[in-house]
């Protein structure tokens, strides 16, 4: 039973991370290869506050999300003005920089040895509820003016600006929402495993999340959720295949690029209000 609970918990935490990427990459079309570093910020800030200052759990969450937002603002403000391909470079660099900082500020973070002794406050119900709430929030975001403007920007930035959309502001909003969600995921992670080390949050994690979003369909929240649930839990269930995870991912990506460039679900949404149920035919 413990194994099942642990698989569910990790799957929900991955789902939270994927939701962040869905907002930034799926809806807005900005490739963030440093998304996992927001998870690191969440885990470390809350972890250090919990261990060294015995801060109550809810306060630690709030502080961690605030730090995530501040970091998001620091990277986001200069990057959103860049061309799309440079954004992935800058976020990649930011992610690696965060890991380098964590590795080197030994007195605070324990460096490469990691930070251990974080209290175990994350419960199964808390992560399941958080994941559900997060899906609700992202769905509301997608079906509001923000979601529409993000999709418009992704599709044609020049036309979007010509329709009066403040592109920089919309991008920053999406970026910050993702930063908040992902740093919250980090808190959940740290307070579940009770031990974190910088290597857990490298760009490979960010890339994995992006793959999951593309697997599900870049414009489909349903797809992102289903893909996160299956791809995140599968390796845990099929333990024997865990070494092959990366290989399996690569094969999946190749198959999708070939046969369904818009992902399994394309634009399909389970609870779409009107029409838009047709899956797109691929680019």
């Amino acid at each position: 039973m413990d194994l099942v609970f642990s698989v569910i918990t990790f799957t929900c935490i991955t789902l939270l991370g994927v939701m962040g990427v869905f907002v930034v990459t799926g809806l807005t079309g900005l490739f963030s290869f440093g998304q996992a570093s927001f998870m690191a910020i969440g885990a470390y800030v809350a972890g250090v506050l919990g261990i060294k200052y015995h801060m109550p759990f809810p306060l630690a969450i709030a502080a961690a999300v605030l730090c995530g937002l501040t970091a998001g603002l620091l990277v986001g403000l200069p990057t959103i003005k860049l061309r799309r391909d440079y954004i992935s470079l800058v976020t990649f660099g930011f992610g690696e920089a965060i890991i380098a900082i964590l590795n080197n500020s030994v007195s605070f973070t324990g460096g490469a040895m990691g930070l251990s002794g974080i209290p175990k406050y994350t419960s199964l119900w808390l992560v399941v509820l958080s994941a559900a709430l997060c899906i609700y929030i992202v769905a509301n975001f997608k079906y509001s003016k923000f979601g529409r403007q993000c999709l418009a920007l992704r599709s044609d930035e020049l036309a979007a600006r010509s329709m009066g959309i403040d592109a920089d502001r919309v991008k920053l909003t999406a970026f910050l929402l993702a930063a908040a969600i992902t740093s919250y995921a980090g808190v959940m992670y740290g307070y579940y495993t009770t031990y974190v080390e910088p290597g857990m949050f490298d760009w490979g994690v960010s890339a994995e999340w992006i793959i999951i979003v593309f697997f599900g369909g870049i414009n489909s929240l349903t797809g992102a959720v289903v893909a996160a649930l299956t791809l995140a839990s599968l390796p845990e269930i099929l333990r024997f295949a865990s070494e092959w995870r990366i290989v399996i991912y690569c094969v999946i990506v190749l198959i999708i690029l070939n046969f369904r460039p818009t992902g399994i679900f394309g634009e399909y949404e389970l609870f779409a209000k009107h029409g838009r149920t047709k899956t797109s035919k691929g680019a």
Partner: protein
Amino acid sequence: MNRLEVRSISKAFGGIQAVTDFSLDLRQNDIVGIIGPNGAGKTTAFNLISGVYKLDSGKILLEGRDLTGLGQHQITRAGIARTFQNIRLFKGLNVLENVMTAADPYSSYNIFESIFRMGRRKRQEEENREKSMHYLDIVGLKPLAYENPESLPYGLQRKLEIARALATNPKVLLLDEPAAGLNPSEVGEFIGLVKRLHRDFDLSILIIEHRMEVIMELCRWIYVLNFGELLASGTPTDIQNNQEVTEAYIGEEDEECLL
């Protein structure tokens, strides 16, 4: 005061002077055309007016307000909307959402009201939906509101672009070759649509078009561009009888070539 005043704008790309010292006046509730051979700088002029490119020199005034140097979205919010020569609709959004997106900058609900579905969001979304449906109705696309824009025939995509431009609540509408690719009956329909917009809205319209029947039928005044410079301007009749304009379009009459 004129609705839109363009005061000797210029733009060069590297060594190529795309638009030189071009001025234009658009009165309230006016329809004005810009014509000229391919590469004459017509679309560049539009891109300068709508803020896609920065001006090298000159000024653009909307109802006396100087728009020079504003960003694209600020110019649109000030009241200049446009359509594109090569249709640029938003993929991933349906027909209705394409129009709603253009009206979205007028919704004031914030991110928290958005992600927690609060009252103001619901009200404003409802208003926006109604307004957008109204614009779709004007161009005759209401029955197709939930379709995918890419699945529409070309002529309807052009109409959707016009509905989307209207949703920004413009004072000046820039139409960039709106009749390109339309068949003759669609062109007639399009002329009727522009006349209706002109009658029902307080709108000044500026049209770039190659099809003379559209320009001659709709425009009060015509500017002719050639190699980025103003070649002539006048009423449709003046332009039709202008020797220089004919030469720019079909080349000079060469005595030796005439039988």
